């Protein structure tokens, strides 16, 4: 069973290639959300012996992991491949909101608007990196903002 959607982070749409290569069970969907929903629909019909391989952005990967975890599939049994973008989801330690698609070293929290420094500490449960206020000690004085997760 292959679930695929073209994402805006890449130029190439692999739908036609997949149609040629995948003999059966292929679903071409229009968005990442549709893929997640198709996955949720299929999981109750799956049996032990099913293997999960997920490729995409980190946010996509960890949303899939969360869905399959509800069915008892453990993290170590999910094969993950990060492709396309290095963009990170960040978890604001102050207001607990998760902000998606951050490609820079510092990003604005979608919940409280604080400017958060994007750390490398990662939570598999949340599927997000730790973000903490970068200018707490000197409000308004920000280091240079660079795109380091394109």
């Amino acid at each position, binding site marked *: 069973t292959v679930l695929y959607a073209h994402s805006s982070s890449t130029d190439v749409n692999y739908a036609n290639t997949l149609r040629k290569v995948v003999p059966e069970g292929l679903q071409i969907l229009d968005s990442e959300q549709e893929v997640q929903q198709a996955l949720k629909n299929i*999981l109750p019909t*799956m*049996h*032990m*012996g*099913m*293997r999960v391989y997920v490729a995409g952005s980190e946010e996509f990967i960890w949303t899939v992991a969360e869905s*399959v975890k509800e*069915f*008892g*599939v*453990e993290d*170590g*049994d999910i094969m993950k491949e990060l492709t396309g973008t290095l963009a990170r989801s960040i978890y604001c330690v102050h207001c607990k909101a998760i902000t998606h698609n951050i490609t820079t070293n510092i990003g604005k929290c979608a919940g409280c608007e604080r400017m958060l420094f994007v750390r490398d500490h990662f939570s598999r449960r949340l599927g997000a990196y730790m973000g903490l206020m970068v200018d707490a000690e000197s409000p308004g004085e920000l280091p240079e903002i660079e795109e380091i997760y394109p």
Partner: protein
Amino acid sequence: MSTINVKVANIKQVTPLIKHFTFVKEDGSEFPAFSGGSHVVVSLNIGGRVHRNPYSLMGSPGDTSAYHISVRKQEHSRGGSVFMHENVTVGMSLKITYPVNLFSLAKKGRKHILIAGGIGITPFMSQIADLERMGADFELHYAFRSPEHGAFARELEQSCGNKFHCYTDSNGERLNLNELLSKQPLGTHVYVCGPNSMVVAVLEAARNLGWPERHIHSEQFLAPPIGEPFKIQLAKSNIEIQVPAEMSMLEAMEAAGVEPDFLCRGGVCGRCELDVLETDGALMHNDHFLSDAEKASCKKIMPCVSRAKCERLVLDI
């Protein structure tokens, strides 16, 4: 290794080949708590030599007033089980180790498939008590030779109801592993305990169907194989030991007064692993713990079951 002094409180013949022993603590106090699937190692003094045999605890972990084990009489063996059947009597004192669990239930499992062959039913008896307490979804599949060899089958039928399935070989009833393991929901774990052929069959069936390793559990109590005598030298203890044909290296070291670490005594847990410093011969690995590469390197050995053909085998102990 620490031991507990116990007294045999009761012995019951369960099937022609299986006896159920009830132990209580010599001092009358409660036993340590244990989890389903645990075993203890019983020390038996047979003709001046100490045999140490592991046996699964069968009783409910909720009851620590007594420990229950069942022993199958193995005719072609080194005598431990025969001794238990023919020489151990009610009131006798024995020494056992504290319980150890190398066959525990996966607490996060959604469903548990338990597969038992013959005397392999024993670890599942205590596991079932835990599963019932947890309200977990499980099935017990019990295969045995013929009706009179199905130890505890009636008791299990009463306690497990429709979760219990038995297969009597003499009636031609066979457990179809592929059928059983190909339709299980995600999050199921499979556990097997029984004769080697059954364990191998279950592991193979599960793996072929794509079950991840961490969802496959097995327990076997293999006796160390008998072989040719050989010599070993212990570097740190500075002694040379002759390992007789019917003793394992571990037992020979224990008889010589050395106290190597051990747990399962059956070549699966890895606790007794020793480094080989030097050898002039061939190592015969009988364990299921070391990787193929480790076995080939001849730098490690499991003294509880493995042997060697050599004059010199220097171990780092």
